[in-house]
């Protein structure tokens, strides 16, 4: 997973100014905000206690490891990463309801799971994000 994009509809002006976000347009589409792994200032939008924040993106957390308790000592908190689009190995695709993640000391880790057949063929990635509603 290389990043997500969030529609301008999902962000308030306050957040855009506070985090100095810059929008882009894809074709004649609406403005959107990119949050990419390769960005210098690597970060992700995340809902924390009913508040949308933009926090540092520190990496990925395998769902299997989380469920096995390997992350318990870090006291991870489950959070939702809102996303309109996702990007993996150059393929942009729509996301219905966001991605699950964990928050550790105000740092975000995206939850991943084994890819479905479709996702694996589409992106050639054996791992895919854990989508909030279960699938693409």
């Amino acid at each position, binding site marked *: 997973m290389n990043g997500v994009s969030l*529609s301008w*509809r999902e962000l308030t002006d306050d957040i855009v100014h506070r985090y100095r976000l810059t929008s882009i347009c*894809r*074709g*004649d*589409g*609406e403005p*959107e905000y990119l949050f990419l792994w390769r960005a210098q200032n690597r970060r992700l939008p995340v809902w924390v206690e009913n508040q949308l924040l933009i926090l540092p993106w520190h990496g990925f957390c395998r769902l299997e490891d989380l469920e096995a308790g390997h992350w318990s000592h870090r006291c991870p908190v489950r959070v939702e990463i809102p996303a*309109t*689009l996702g990007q993996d190995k*150059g*393929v*942009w*695709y*729509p996301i219905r309801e966001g991605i699950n993640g964990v928050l550790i000391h105000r740092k975000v880790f995206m939850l991943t799971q084994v890819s*479905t*057949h*479709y*996702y*694996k*063929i*589409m992106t*050639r990635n054996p791992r895919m994000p854990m989508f909030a509603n279960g*699938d*693409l």
Partner: protein
Amino acid sequence: MNQPNYVAHIDSDCFYVSAERVRNPTLRGVPVGVLGNQGACVIAKSYEMKAAGVKTGTPIWDAIKICPDGVYVKRDFHWYEVISRKLLALLKTVSPLVEYYSIDEMFFDADQLCAIFGKTLEKSMEALQQKVKDEIGIPVSIGIAHTKTLAKLGSDTAKPFGCKLMDGDRRAILRDIPAGELCGVGRRSEKKLIENGIVTCWDFVQADRLFIRNLLTIKGEALWYELNGEAVQPIVTSRPPHKAIARGGSVGRQTTDRDRLNGFVVRNSERLIDALDYHQVHSRLIVLSLEYNGEIGWCRRVSLAEPTAAFKEIVGASKFLMRHAPIPARVSHMHVIAEKLSYRKTVQRSLFSSPKDERLDKIKWYVNRKIGRFSVRSGDTLVLDDVYADEANEYDICDIYGKMCF
């Protein structure tokens, strides 16, 4: 029913993408590609993606190089059917005769349009186009003429989001349209026409009718009449009975694994039985065809003792054929086809047949209807858990019933 004076053809512009944009407005204005069920190839694209150079059938890995900003969506025939049927229902409010030609194309009697919209025919087409956009959310193109063939040419040439009344100087309209664009003229027919100096639709119209008939049979002759403004193809409001019903397609990753292929034979047979049940027909002949690496390779048929749609007989016949199928190369596509169809109420039973116990088939049908398709399925399909795990595989375009063509 009298042939209407004016026939309209309505064609949705990049239908799958437009349907996706109805439920996801962030895709508007963005290059969008719809991927096949495997996620490997683009099966439909927006005008923006087409302009970038992505073609239907382009593998995803080439598409992202050609159009890196494109957004790639998984196909969803359940949703496309919802939008398609909304369009059909809307057309039925403005026309007494509507033909459900395909998921994104419909013909209808346009004689009432002026009275309904209180405008000229040209303005009424535009009003209808806007009504579809407002009420359903998809852009459509509309052609109106005295025949179906001319109406379809009208909508084809008006795209995108255009309207054309094919009522003026036919020569001016037809001389720029290649004859190969005509619905019903395939590559081989087009080649024959070109060899005889018939390149454009106007050349076709100018040719001798009997010459066209000799060249392209009565189907070509019908096109000749239609292009000359004489309607010979009526608006068909209900689909004529099938001569054969097929289920199948790609087997995903190509394979020589007989267990997996047997799983697909049974899966396709169960889908076929669903279709036979829907159409209330029985079959007396089962055909299995296999393609190796995309090339048609092997095809065999087996007759059934009597017309039936019972799981035991249909699946038994398909599995029998599969057992005898050679696998010299990886299988890419498979079809199970039911032929010699007859209506269930008119079946001539064999004197020697014993009464069939179809209670299990009925229970399975009820459970699947109530809980969801394939909730109960043959154990032979357990090797295909990856296929069944993806709910998009539950429904295909051939499961949308009532259309005149695929």
